[in-house]
């Protein structure tokens, strides 16, 4: 497959109803690595991820993958904060992205079953996806996102509202994907999670990248007052 990274954002902005939600953002995402996007609520984490993935149109500036956007989209995946489950069986949910790209039903289901085993949902394959618990839904969404072996995976707070065990399982899946060469960009609130997983951190504040750097350095000694307050557990608005 043709490489789609690095991704370059130049002066990218998102405005809605005259209000600027994000930007201007200048950013280059290298082909490898694990980036945690951090910042207080409303800082623009979700908007930044959606913008990069193409779910939001930039109001100004530009976003450039190495290849044209349509082609690049096929090599990306997105896991939403509230997982979207299709009203069909768990197995068919995971097989769906393959079916969209013309795989035969049996082949798609075979690979989907393989992925369900990897995320620990093998027993639930034939159940309706709508009866899964929160943690199971998120694992389903992860399997569905990873099944087409994307070059880059965006995650929007995948572990919000999950208990410790689900979180550990999801982090293990993410670590494995990262080891296999998937570029990961994850929004998270959780400092511990950023410490465990991330190689670099983007700290967003009021719609702009306020600070960026290697995770270890950022978490140990943030440069800006807002980031210091955020990491120190103070309420940052």
């Amino acid at each position, binding site marked *: 497959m043709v490489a789609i990274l690095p991704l370059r954002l130049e002066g990218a902005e998102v405005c809605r109803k005259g209000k600027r939600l994000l930007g201007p953002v200048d950013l280059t995402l290298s082909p490898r690595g694990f980036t945690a996007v951090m910042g207080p609520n409303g800082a623009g984490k979700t908007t930044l991820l959606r913008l990069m993935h193409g*779910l939001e149109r930039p109001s100004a500036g530009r976003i450039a993958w190495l290849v044209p956007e349509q082609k690049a989209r096929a090599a*990306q*995946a997105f896991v939403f904060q509230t997982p979207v489950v299709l009203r069909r069986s768990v197995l068919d949910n995971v097989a769906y992205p393959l079916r969209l790209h013309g795989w035969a039903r049996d082949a798609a289901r075979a690979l989907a079953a393989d992925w369900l085993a990897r995320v620990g949902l093998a027993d639930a394959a034939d159940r309706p996806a709508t009866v899964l618990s929160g943690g199971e839904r998120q694992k389903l969404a992860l399997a569905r996102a990873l099944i087409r072996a994307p070059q880059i995976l965006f995650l929007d707070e995948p572990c919000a509202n999950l208990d410790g065990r689900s979180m550990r399982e999801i982090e293990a899946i993410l670590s494995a994907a990262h080891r296999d060469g998937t570029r990961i960009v994850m929004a998270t609130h959780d400092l511990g999670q950023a410490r465990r997983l991330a190689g670099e951190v983007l700290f967003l504040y009021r719609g702009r990248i306020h600070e960026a750097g290697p995770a270890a350095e950022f978490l140990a000694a943030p440069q800006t007052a807002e980031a210091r307050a955020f990491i120190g557990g103070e309420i940052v608005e």
Partner: protein
Amino acid sequence: MNEILQGMARAAWLVVTLDADLVEIALRSLQVTLTAVAIASAIGLPLGALLAVSRFRHRRAAIATLNALMGLPPVVVGLVVYLLLSRSGPFGVFGLLFTPTAMIVAQVMLLTPLIASIAHQAMRDLWADYHDLLISLNASRAQRIRALIWDGRRALLTAALAGFGRGIGEVGAIMIVGGNIDHSTRVLTTAIALETAKGDFALALGLGFVLIALALAVNFAIHGLARTEAGSRW
């Protein structure tokens, strides 16, 4: 009161003896309306889904129009179809007027907006759920519509059943374009209208009970087949 009792007795007798005329009329009713529902669903269900996933300039006006067309007066539809199919009309050469086909055409025109509108309501809610995921997965418009129709099939069944309900009980349009000709275009509703006009209330009531039973039977059969409300299905 006496007439209702007589009607029920007459109806029971007609049903028990499988009266040839009654069976013929009932089957024609089913044939006309089921065919019309099938055709109207084939048009209306994808149309409803398309309206749910598309954003175009006059979308709101299109939806408002569709909703208004749900209340299309059957008599007027019958009149329009009559004019289209009559000997001097644009489709007169096909000689379809006063045939079951003409009745099906009229019912398709009546049922399509109803089915499309109900389908659109259901698809709109499902699309709100699916929107982000299907965009993210880069699904084409046809694939989005297919996903909505497949995953929303139970809601769409309701739309089709509503169409059946309107069609099976409808008399205005099929009376005009069908003509209520014995052994040719007579159906339950037109027969009831005729018997009432003749003053044969017992037979009219009997046919009425058969009509209601038929509508109930079809609904139960379809619910049974689709297993709606069975267990923890979605």
